């Protein structure tokens, strides 16, 4: 149930951001080039070629990526590698990664 509510929230948020009706502070300061550079750290593990063991994240909604990274940063989601990676990211870096991965083809 929580998952469904969360997904619904994400979909509505994405729609509103897309329509420009709500500014999304989590994506403030996003810098595409910076995101491309930072993505190198993610791409050692995350690839579109396979979902086995590690999820493919290309084309995911930017707000979804940003929120996930914040949950890992705050250690509210488990996985030592992700907690480490996200723990070293500031808000601008998270926003940049989010819009970069969102731009990639699924």
């Amino acid at each position, binding site marked *: 149930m929580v998952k469904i509510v969360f997904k619904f929230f994400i979909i509505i948020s994405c729609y509103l951001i897309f329509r420009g009706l709500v500014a999304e502070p989590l994506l403030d300061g996003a810098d595409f*080039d910076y995101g491309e*550079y930072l993505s190198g750290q993610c*791409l050692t593990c995350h*690839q579109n070629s396979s979902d*086995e063991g590690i999820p493919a994240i290309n084309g995911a909604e930017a707000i979804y990526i940003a929120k996930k990274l914040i949950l890992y940063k705050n250690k509210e989601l488990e996985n030592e*590698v992700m907690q480490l990676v996200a723990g070293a990211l500031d808000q601008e870096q998270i926003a940049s990664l989010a819009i970069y991965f969102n731009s990639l083809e699924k």
Partner: protein
Amino acid sequence: MNNLSRRSFVSFALASTSLLAMPAISTGSARPKVVVVGGGAGGATAARYIAKDSKGAIDVTLIEASKHYYTCFYSNLYLGGFRDYDSIGHSYDNLSANHGVNVVHDWAISVDPSARKVRLGSGATVSYDRLVLSPGIDIKYDSIDGYSVEAQTKMPHAWKSGTQVKVLRDQVLNMPKGGTFAMVPPPNPYRCPPGPYERISMVAHILKEKNPTAKIVVIDPKNKFSKQGLFMAGWEKHYPGMVEWIDNDTHGGIKNVNPETMEIETDLDTFKADVACVVPAQRAGAIAMNAGVTDGDWSPIVPASMQTKADGNIYVLGDASVASAMPKSGFSANSQAKVAANHIRGELTDSRVFPAKFSNTCWSLVATNDGIKVGANYKAGEEKIEVVDKFVSKTDEGNAKRKKTYEESIGWYNGITTDMFS
């Protein structure tokens, strides 16, 4: 071969016949030139990222002797029977086809830093604006008395993946019933710190099934090792009584090995083995030595860029570099390659250069579905690469977590090899 690389090939061929008469060799382009030596986790990644991200603005040549690259990471899983040999082999075809990298299968023999040229085994030379050396390790055969190039078939080091690992697997599978497998890990610093201990786990995995009365003796030149508590707890859990680890203080030092009698002599005792994996000390690949960018056995680098301290036009990645807190691993090399690629593009095409960010995780398999990991992220300090934060698996985490860690390592293997070769 695309048109550009066909022209390049002709240039190389011509160059090889008229080197002295024609010191400036064109690779068929006025674009800035990057030459990458070594097609492993550092070199293949650097070549791919520079070519991909510069979108053709930089002429990238990758020099790698092997047509097929067998990864060192996961070679232990092949040894243990968890992977097919073919599954750890990769081709360079996509680097040419997808990113226009000129892949030249040859040895880089020497570097002339003042003329900015690399001489190849064929006799041809190739010029560069920036040179990336990622040659991995060379084995110091003379670091153990009695060991030699000839000895490596009887006592394989199997520390560069490929056929040596096949030889070692055959030897383990054909070991006499109740025989002894001896492992001599290398002294620090060396490629893949947890590697010798994952190897012991994989050999134990085979022996438990096929030769359960066999023994494993580890004659270590060190007194401690990576993920020690996790490995030792795993050996006791999965292979009770099979593995005996003897530290340097206990055996007093390895005096010599004898591949004819299969003996390993220490101050304490002489150990007789049926199969022995002997991994000597290591140093940077020879081309880094030749380029004059090493200090002792390894190449000091500028942490913010991976440029060598000796020559700003030459970058050294991975095992061959002094990366301070970062271990010599494929993951580290891949991470360093992206920092170097970003810096090189900035220098040659004025693209934006971002602050260096490094990371590493080493997964190891102890037994079926029992994966462990250690990882850290790093920043560029003034003099050294420094740890920001780190983690290591816990001895008391449950079986489900260990299984997930192993599955994660499969994802990482697929990820990093795609990041290198696609």
